[in-house]
């Protein structure tokens, strides 16, 4: 997918062309790039690459009205790029008073985002499926819906986010899915990204129940 000699990028322009799709995963409708893989590529491209996590009053995040924002600077090819990211839960909502685990996860995500400022996987953040210059396969366009229907589907997704936590068994989850099958079919056809988010929510809820038991 890339035109980079030996598969190694040696400049921001080549990093921009690197296809990272095999190293991503989708969660709650968003695409995440593996930080370890991204760092490995950064090291290949510039062995002097380094990153810095900004500290605020001895904490690795800035307190904004009780929620946290982490800041990471990556220096690569002799240039420093700084990025920031709020500490969020699986619904992409800010977490009040985040714990160490949540902050750590956000720092690594922020590192990946800062690497994107240097070109690596930047296309993901601009909502593209492939890096620039790569040929895109034809994709089916989602069905277009009137605004009111989109709004009602968004409300439906909101409802799922709210209520999925109340499912206390696999049977509950199955029942929740079955009872909403018609809307789920509609969501899949009209808003595939939101449907992917719902699928992720169910997967997470299932694995959480499995862990509990």
């Amino acid at each position, binding site marked *: 997918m890339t035109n980079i000699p030996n598969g190694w990028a040696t400049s921001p322009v080549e990093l921009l062309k690197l296809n990272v799709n095999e190293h991503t995963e989708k969660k709650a409708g968003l695409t995440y790039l593996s930080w370890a893989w991204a760092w490995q590529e950064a090291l290949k491209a510039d062995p002097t690459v380094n990153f810095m996590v900004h500290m605020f009053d001895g904490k690795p995040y800035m307190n904004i009205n009780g929620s946290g924002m982490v800041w990471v600077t990556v220096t690569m090819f002799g240039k420093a790029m700084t990025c920031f990211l709020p500490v969020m839960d699986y619904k992409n909502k800010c977490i009040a008073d985040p714990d160490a685990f949540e902050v750590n996860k956000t720092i690594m995500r922020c590192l990946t985002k800062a690497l994107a400022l240097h070109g690596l996987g930047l296309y993901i953040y601009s909502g593209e499926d492939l890096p620039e210059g790569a040929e895109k396969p034809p994709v089916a366009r989602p069905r277009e819906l009137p605004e009111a229907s989109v709004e009602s589907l968004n409300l439906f997704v909101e409802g799922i986010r709210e209520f999925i936590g109340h499912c206390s068994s696999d049977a509950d989850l*199955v029942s929740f899915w*079955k009872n909403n*099958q018609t809307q789920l079919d509609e969501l899949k056809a009209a808003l595939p990204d939101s449907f992917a988010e719902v699928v992720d929510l169910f997967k997470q809820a299932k694995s959480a129940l499995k862990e509990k038991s």
Partner: protein
Amino acid sequence: MKITNKYGVPDNLVTLASREYYTKGKSQYSVTELLSPPRIKRLREKFNENIEQDVSDMLWQMLGSALHVVFERSQTPGYVTEERVFLEVDGVTLSGQIDVQQETPEGIVLIDYKFTSAWAVMQDKVEWEEQLNVYAWLLQKVKGKPVIGLKICAMIRDFSRHDQREDYPDSPIHMMDIPLWDMEITERFVKERLHQHQLSKMQMELGENLPQCSNAERWMSETVYAVKREGRKTAIKLFTSIEEAQERAVKEKGYVETRLGEPRRCTGNFCGVAAHCDQYSEWLGNQPSGTAEA
């Protein structure tokens, strides 16, 4: 599904084959879909664009559809033909197209046409019994009239007057009585099938394993043991017990050949999705390379 034309038959036959005479209308499940294995339905949905069927393999299917169209014209007092009924079950719309309803003072006799082989008529076709009973349940729920009898009107495409086998049908059009189930039992059956389909839909979306097809759903044939002798092409006799076969082989100074049972629906790709099915791949992977036993 793509219809191919490998043998260069006239294009209008391809057009006919591509046309769906049966639509499930606004329903989410037709009775036929409800009764088919969830794994097959899900794989067909997923790989619909990759499935190919040649028009030459659709001859009987097309003739069956043609007959339904012809029968629809045979309006006769006291008979309702080709009526599609819809019912909402557990939030899902289910539909069934009923070939013939014979109205009697006591209730409805439901008749279904089957354009089939003599062999099929001679088997206990559980799926026919299930299909007709689900139709009966639908009809009673929708119309509020009792169904008092179920019949199959089998049109036997390979009928031969010379066949003397026991249970062989007497005529090319053969009427068969089908047992009528209790309404409550049928309702439980319908809801359980529906649950299995809905569950498989969720499993598919979440990337989980699909439920496996049962041996009956895979049309699994029985393993048989053929007693054979060197120099003779055909078996002397087939046995379902290896002990009996070995005993006979000793008497005949022959040997026993094991003919393993196989899932004929998969091996013949009658489901259309055998190439995409991990259950079938696993079965193929487990097959021994040799089957002969001395």
